[in-house]
């Protein structure tokens, strides 16, 4: 197995693990972490693409690396926004869940999620 194939499989596994977390876990913080896992998987795929040098037969294509850097900045901003929203939600309700069936309670009433 070449290192590129191994990296590809790891990338796929990261995306899969992250996707599982995003879908199954109702807690926003875990979901945010799971999103970052998916993001890491995607960036790894970009890394392999760079190694492949598909563009012009270069040894290492710089364009996907530039994309990964931009992608990391965007993912960081997204995580920050999501964490800020989660914190505000927790401050207001004492609960942080995105399940619509769970009614918002007064602060302290349901401090099962932190």
């Amino acid at each position, binding site marked *: 197995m070449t290192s590129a194939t191994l990296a590809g499989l790891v990338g796929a596994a990261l995306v899969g693990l992250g996707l599982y977390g995003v879908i199954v876990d109702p807690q926003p913080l875990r979901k945010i972490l799971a999103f970052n896992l998916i993001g890491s998987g995607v960036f790894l795929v970009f890394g392999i693409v760079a190694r492949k040098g598909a563009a012009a037969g270069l040894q290492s294509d710089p364009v996907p690396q530039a994309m990964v850097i931009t992608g990391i900045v*965007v993912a960081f901003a997204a995580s920050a926004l999501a964490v800020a*929203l989660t914190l505000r939600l927790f401050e207001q309700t004492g609960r942080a869940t995105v399940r619509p069936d769970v009614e918002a309670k007064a602060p302290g009433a349901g401090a099962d999620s932190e």
Partner: protein
Amino acid sequence: MSDGGSVIAETAGGSLLPLAVLVPAAGMLISFLLGGRRAERIALGLMPVQFGVSMAIAGFVWRSGEPLVYVLGGYLPPLGIALRADGFSAVMLVTASLIMPAAGLYARANFATPPGATERRGPLVVWALMQAVQAALSLIFLGGDLFNLYVALELLTFAAVPLVCLDGSPETLAAALRYLMFALFGALFYLLGAALLYGAYGTLDIVLLSQRVRAEPAVWVAAGLMTAGLLAKTALFPLHLWLPPAHANAPAAASAVLSGLVVKGSFFLIVRLWFNVLQSLPTAVPGTVLAALGSAAILAGSALALRQERLKLMIAYSTVAQIGYLFLMFPLASGPWAPEAFSGGVMQTISHAFGKAAMFLSAGLIAESLGHDQIAGLGGAGRAMPVTFLALGLGGLSLMGLPPSGGFAAKWLLMKASIEAGQWVWALVMLGGGLLAGGYLYRALAPALSGERPIMKRAPKRGSEVVALALALAAVVLAFAPPAFFAFLQIGRPAASVALR
């Protein structure tokens, strides 16, 4: 189509394209620096400029009959990034530059900073974010590079999500968080698809990709991932769960922008993907899958709208249904009926944008004047605030697809195309959706026109009523679009030039 080199060469008027992005982006940054009171003036002052730029772009596209191209920094693709404006882009730019000031004028009533009052966070954020939404939408409509479009898509999300939770109440925070989760999911899938396409062809430029793409596994996987991601952002059934709470709980001006324009941004990219990037692929099967999901959205969204107690939630569920109509153009994308189907889809996009913005603004006025937006409590309200209900009703015409309205023109074109193509299933779904839309609008409008005396907390603001009515009239006027308008929509549609060849 001509060879790749001349497609990417810069055209006359191309230098207008970056302006459409830069004007609102600069406005947003300056607003943020100068604070709430000046932010309002900057936002409202730049909106006519944006409209002028959009009209100028449309004028250049119209005169040349070809898409406008601008190459950023003079670096040609595949290394550089191109901006392109075809007929669809230009029409969407103009639509956005009309709806945004309408929402802005409406928002003035609630997010003004009166002289002498201390500045608050709400107004500053609203004016900055509305300009951010406009900048991100312009970039989506003009972007010619799939990675650049990913950044635009994320900018749109980051600008739209805080608009949902402006008042900071727990339910709006939860709605915004859910919206963000769906949007992040969508963005990452889109990005993964883009990575696969780059790996296969070494470029993400839309025109270059469209010449290189062949039907092979990597492309199908990439197309599936990108489409799934964009569907989550567009809220197509069954990925619509985030939309009703987010759109129904936001302030009215924000709801109008979110429902009228923001969901159209990701839809625009689905059209770009399937009609431009993947134009050489056989699209019958994926097109049918998209239209089947759209049909499910029309029926389920309308049925859910019928069951809502609150007016704003009803309008939000009707957005879920109306988004479904947009996807009926995909299985009709090839064949002699393709121009009609494309025009119908675009017409539905813009007439829904105007009609739904008008309805959300009217619903906002109703909620302010009555102190609630329970449909059961609307008795006689139509007599107390006739202009508001006229705007609500005229916006509703488009949803039902009754003439004269842009919605009628859109649904008529789509129905004609589906019957000509022998795919009459879609025509039946459209008829059923129209009947259901008539049902839920009747539920809201019939009690409002009864003889009861409503308890009014205050009279609706005249200026805001006029804004809502103007938007509703725009949706009606679209019914009288001349044939030249439909010819304009076809400019730059790849299949159109293939058919002519």
